[in-house]
């Protein structure tokens, strides 16, 4: 299932990350909680943001996060959410919003989560109301990646009341909103546990006028577009988690060797435990990716990969910390521990992934 030339792509990505993600830069962006624009540009110029080469992007994400998760994600998420335009957008939207992103000139963001609705996407309250030939958008979005740096966002809002309590996911529409438009406001959310080199913002939309041509796909079908996007994005998130777990495993292995602990069973067992889980997470993730890249995504496999890889990232960083003591909690490993936790939350919590898995399995019976 894995293309033969993956080792070459992997090697190139690893070389880039080791060269560019220096200790100094990792700490600088972490402490300043700043988006690493220079690294984003370099990664683009080196050809890593190439949506026509999905396996290349996948292993780049894995290798980048293996060296530093915050910088790695920011470097490769400049086109965040743009798959919805690729799949459902008009030619006009593709030309206006997708092309500049793919050329590395613009940054996009995906705005769904709200203060009162996270996992429960259908519970959002943002409103999109008809006014003349266009629409007016009001509402708030929270925890939005690229929130302070994106030039435009793919925003989900309610455009008509749900027909019934059971059909809350009906009547939602997705639109493209530019950050320069009147009524738009983005405030950076600081003080995260980890991933501080990624931009996270609270967005506010106050009577933002949205032209009709900025509706993505059909009005009222936004919820389906979001769910389709999750089938793609969750594989990338699983890959982030996989990279974090592999990076922690690398550090633990180095610790064992440097401290002459090779023959101690406590460390051997911990290493075996971590390595087994990392391998399993990689197989699940690559399997889900293979299905997606052959245009046959399987939401069950995708959710399994995302859930298991996220949990593995937390498990491996925790175990590595446990056996590296003070050295661990004052080294790069402590950052990996903090970065890892979000992988169990964003883009669908573990609990949501379990719901997807079980509901779809039961539906097939």
């Amino acid at each position, binding site marked *: 299932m894995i293309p033969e030339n993956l080792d070459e792509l992997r090697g190139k990505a690893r070389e880039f990350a080791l060269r560019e993600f220096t200790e100094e830069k990792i700490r600088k962006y972490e402490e300043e909680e700043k988006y690493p624009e220079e690294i984003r540009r370099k990664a683009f110029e080196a050809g890593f943001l190439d949506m026509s080469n999905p396996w290349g992007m996948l292993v780049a994400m894995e290798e980048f996060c293996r060296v530093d998760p915050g910088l790695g994600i920011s470097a490769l998420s400049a086109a965040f959410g743009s798959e919805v335009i690729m799949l459902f957008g008009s030619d006009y939207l593709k030309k206006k919003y997708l092309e500049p992103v793919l050329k590395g000139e613009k940054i996009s963001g995906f705005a769904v989560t709200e203060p009162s609705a996270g*996992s429960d996407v259908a*519970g959002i309250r943002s409103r999109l109301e008809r006014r003349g030939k266009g629409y007016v958008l009001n509402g708030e979005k929270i925890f939005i990646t690229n929130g302070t740096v994106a030039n435009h966002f793919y925003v989900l809002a309610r455009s008509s009341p749900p027909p019934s309590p059971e059909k809350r996911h009906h009547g939602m529409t997705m639109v493209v909103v530019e950050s320069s438009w009147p009524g738009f406001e983005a405030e950076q959310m600081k003080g995260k*546990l980890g991933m501080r080199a990624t931009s996270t913002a609270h967005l506010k939309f106050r009577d933002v006028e949205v032209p009709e041509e900025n509706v993505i796909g059909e009005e009222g079908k936004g919820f389906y577009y979001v769910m389709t996007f999750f089938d793609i994005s969750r594989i990338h998130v699983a890959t982030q988690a996989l990279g974090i777990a592999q990076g922690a495993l690398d550090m633990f292995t180095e610790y064992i060797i440097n401290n002459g602990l090779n023959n101690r*069973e406590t460390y051997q067992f911990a290493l075996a435990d971590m390595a087994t889980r990392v391998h399993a997470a990689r197989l699940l993730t690559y399997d889900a990716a293979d299905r997606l890249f052959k245009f046959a995504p399987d939401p069950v496999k995708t959710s399994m990969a995302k859930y298991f890889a996220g949990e593995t990232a937390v498990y491996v960083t925790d175990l590595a910390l446990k056996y590296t003591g003070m050295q661990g909690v004052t080294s790069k490993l402590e950052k990996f521990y903090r970065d890892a936790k979000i992988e169990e939350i964003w883009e669908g919590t573990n609990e949501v992934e379990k719901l997807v898995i079980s509901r779809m399995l039961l539906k097939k019976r």
Partner: protein
Amino acid sequence: MFSEDQLLMRSTAREFAQRELAQRAEKIEKEGIDNELRSKLASAGFLGAMLPSKYGGSDLDRTSFMLVLQEISKYSPTTALFVLLQHSLVGRTLIRDLSLAESYVQDIVSGKTSWTLPLFQRNLKLDGGRIRGEIPYLPLPRADFLVSYADPKTLVVIKGGVTEVRAHHSLGFRGLGLSHVSVDSVAEKLSQVEVDPTPKVLDEASLEVAAIALGMAQASLERAMDYSKSRRAFNSLLAEFQPLAFQLLEYDAQIKALERFIYSIKDNESLEAGEAKLLSIDLAKRMSRISLQVHGGYGYFEYTGVEKFYRDSAALEAMVSDQVGEKVKLSVLLLGVEPKI
């Protein structure tokens, strides 16, 4: 399980924590424990909790002191560890030879000056009247005084001459600060007492550490419960979903059982005390992870006050014990055989 005096001490500590720490906890993580808070901790009698009253102490029993640490830890684990460190200075180190250190003990207990000591003791080199060397992990690196060993028998007090080589990016207890420092200073010898050749400050305080970890686990559970009863998703309260409710139920039972176990132990050097410490830290880690997860994206931010338990519990594990060394010691107590392989 507790006497009336002990319950009174617990409610005093709880009120102190709610009044002085609840609103200040985030600031403590960023700016440390300032003179004002140190004075308040001293006035409340926490810095010399178990010390005899003739030295300015509160003359508390161990259970009362553990209850104080547990309550403080629910709001600020950093402050709880600070209190334990100051107490270790007077209770386990300086008090051993009060004829030399009495004035210093009173300074610490009254909060007049700030003191520190290395987490993992390394002998500094005494050469004539000067003391030199490096300390890789020193909390409170800007304290007025540093207490250390010049050799396994000689305790010294150092004022000035401590230079920060590197401030560590520490996972937890950020308000304490943690630095690698070099020392080159005039030393004052304090005592000539026999000590463990490789003493660790918190080694002899298993039950106190267990109480701190228990406080973290309880706070994490309480916050998860509160949030689950106020946050709605999919038209229901989070608490109405069985997997979460059952998980919180299970952890509530574990915490209650552990609390009874911890407070039933009398000997800090016993196998049970060591087991209680390991169990409580493990429980604090697992419970804080669940609490963060329940809070979703909000839990990932400092202002929610949940993520610090996730960091601090993992850091505590590293700060108070060498996992393997500790378990070897306890295994010998349990099995009578040393696990070497």
